[in-house]
């Protein structure tokens, strides 16, 4: 093999007219989920029934793919007075996620760290290992600030990555599973030609120019600390409804509650893990009724500090990937972009 062939060995071209065959071929690797449009216009990751339902050009899905790794609700154990706590079967059904954007792939890489550090959470990694990730390129809209959060690009965390180059997808292979998928469907891929490389570079350049939203990350942790008492928090706290939507839609929020749910016999039941939000009032309530974060402003501050200060000091990057979901979903129109700009006083407050 020539050097050039080697270099181009992990890239291919998938002509768009062969895309349906590609999707059919994925079934070998698990049940396929991809973004489809709901009647109300929202995009959601759903099981693929017809290839025509897949919208590869979707802006952002309502929920992030975190729901496949860390579902909204998980039965951790079942229990009964006689048997104590015992395991339900772990879900290891092979799954293929098609159409995951770079921000969400970065979100998964962040969750990997969270569920790995201190104590490894085996359910998460059981799901992670049964999941094949096929990334796809996207067009940033006015709420995307992934570039500011350094998560607009991925060089790991995917098995295949498809970049739209007009009438074809430029395909990068990230793992040997990706290589297996290509090998199992030889008829749908063709080798990369010079003009494909040119088209790929062009697509990447256009995307880099397309960002409208931006926040400055430099010295942000320090600025947040200095602005700990800023009225920006108070004003946002007054608007916030403590609904927790921003946490549910976020690809990197991982707060959870653990509780025992009883069956009708009031004796047996299950220990349940459920998504929680640090914006809920009860989140920091302790014995005696004392609440360490009673004000909505202090809970909001907690969310920003966790993502933009605490995570940076531990992992060297914020745990926000700039996907814009919390901005789109907030019923009180609170925007993380505007908040950060106000705290930095880039805009008049």
């Amino acid at each position, binding site marked *: 093999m020539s050097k050039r062939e080697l270099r181009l060995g992990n890239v291919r071209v998938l002509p768009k007219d062969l895309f349906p065959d590609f999707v059919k071929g994925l079934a070998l690797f698990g049940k396929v989920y991809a973004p489809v449009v709901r009647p109300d216009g929202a995009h959601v990751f759903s099981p693929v029934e017809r290839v025509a339902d897949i919208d590869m050009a979707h802006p952002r899905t309502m929920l992030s793919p975190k729901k496949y790794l860390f579902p909204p609700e998980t039965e*951790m*154990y079942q*229990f*009964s*007075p006689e048997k*104590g*706590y015992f*395991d339900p079967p772990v879900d290891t059904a092979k799954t293929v996620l098609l159409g995951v954007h770079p921000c969400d792939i970065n979100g998964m890489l962040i969750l*990997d760290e*969270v*569920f*790995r*550090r*201190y*104590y*490894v*959470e*085996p*359910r998460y*990694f059981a799901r*992670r*290992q*049964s*999941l094949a*990730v096929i990334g796809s390129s996207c067009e940033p809209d006015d709420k995307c600030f992934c570039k500011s959060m350094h998560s607009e690009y991925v060089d790991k965390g995917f*098995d295949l990555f498809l970049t739209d180059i007009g009438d074809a997808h430029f395909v990068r292979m990230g*793992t040997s*599973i990706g290589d297996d998928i290509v090998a199992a469907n030889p008829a749908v891929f063709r080798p990369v030609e010079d003009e494909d490389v040119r088209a790929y570079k062009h697509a990447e350049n256009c995307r880099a120019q397309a960002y409208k939203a931006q926040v400055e990350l430099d010295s942000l942790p320090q600025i947040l600390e200095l602005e*700990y008492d800023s009225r920006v928090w108070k004003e946002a706290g007054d608007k916030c409804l403590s609904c927790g939507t921003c946490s549910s839609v976020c690809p990197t929020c*991982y*707060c*959870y*509650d*653990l*509780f*025992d749910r*009883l069956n009708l016999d*009031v*004796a047996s*039941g299950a*220990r349940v*893990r459920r998504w*929680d939000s*640090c914006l809920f009032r009860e*989140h*920091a*309530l*302790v*014995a*005696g009724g004392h609440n*360490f*974060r009673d004000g909505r402003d*202090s809970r909001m501050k*907690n969310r920003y*500090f*966790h993502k933009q*200060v*605490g995570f940076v*000091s*531990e992992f060297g990057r914020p745990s926000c990937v700039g996907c814009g979901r919390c901005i789109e979903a907030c019923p009180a129109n609170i925007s993380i972009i505007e908040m950060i700009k106000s705290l930095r006083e880039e805009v008049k407050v």
Partner: protein
Amino acid sequence: MLAEKDIIYRADPHRPSPARLVGVQPLAPEHALFQFRFEDPKENERWTHRPGQFVMVSVVGTGEAPISICSSPSRRGVIELCVRNTGRVTSALHRLKEGAIVGLRGPYGNGYPVEKMKGQDILIVAGGLGMAPLRSLVWYVLDNRSDFGHVSLLYGTRTPEDVLFKGEIAGLVGRGDLETHLTVDKLVEDGQPWPHDVGVVTGLFKYVKDRVDPTRAYAAVTGPPIMYRFVLRELLALGFGKDRILMSLERRMKCGIGKCSHCAVGYKYTCIHGPIFTYWDAMNLPEMI
């Protein structure tokens, strides 16, 4: 998909291990001492903890609660918890009879830095239920007495009735190798026998302030939030460095393993980086007390 090499498998950290309640003793109104032993003898053998660490206790059907281990690692055999009856899990625990099975997992948290405390004077200040984690430290220090300098225990409760471990504390009062002083906020009735102080716990500092060398001492303080404010002021006035004051912080906890984020204070997880924090660390975190 993640490569196999990227994942380290260990036992499921959320899983409680069955443990049998082998003894219950009432200690004070709404407070009792619970003694547990794991059902699996191997787990009893493997078990070690540091003073100041805690366990997550499950009572089937009610959920889990974090409870400090109040027995000392220097006294093996049973794991002891001193529990106040306040809510779902703790009231279910109080209803259990000897022989009942609960779930335990842990030990969690950092515990007291006992290695660093060696060779130093130790000033232990307990308020109310704060005695629970500190009892573990008291017995650890007494069982390794020659490792430490002057050791004193200042313990305040609301009334004489509320003193936890009454018999044990009475035994400590006469010991030559430990200086113990007690105080209550008030007597229940006038003339009640109480050969100790009445007043706030800071009133006890006068007994020990000339015996402790703050430059080579650690103060371990645990009590209700209000107590910290006064005790900290007193300790700083005595000349304790901020990194020589060890406080135990209480936060809501669900997982105990640094994931659920309920116990987050600023950038730290109380269940991982605490519950024992130096005053210096505490000062630099928002919403600390």
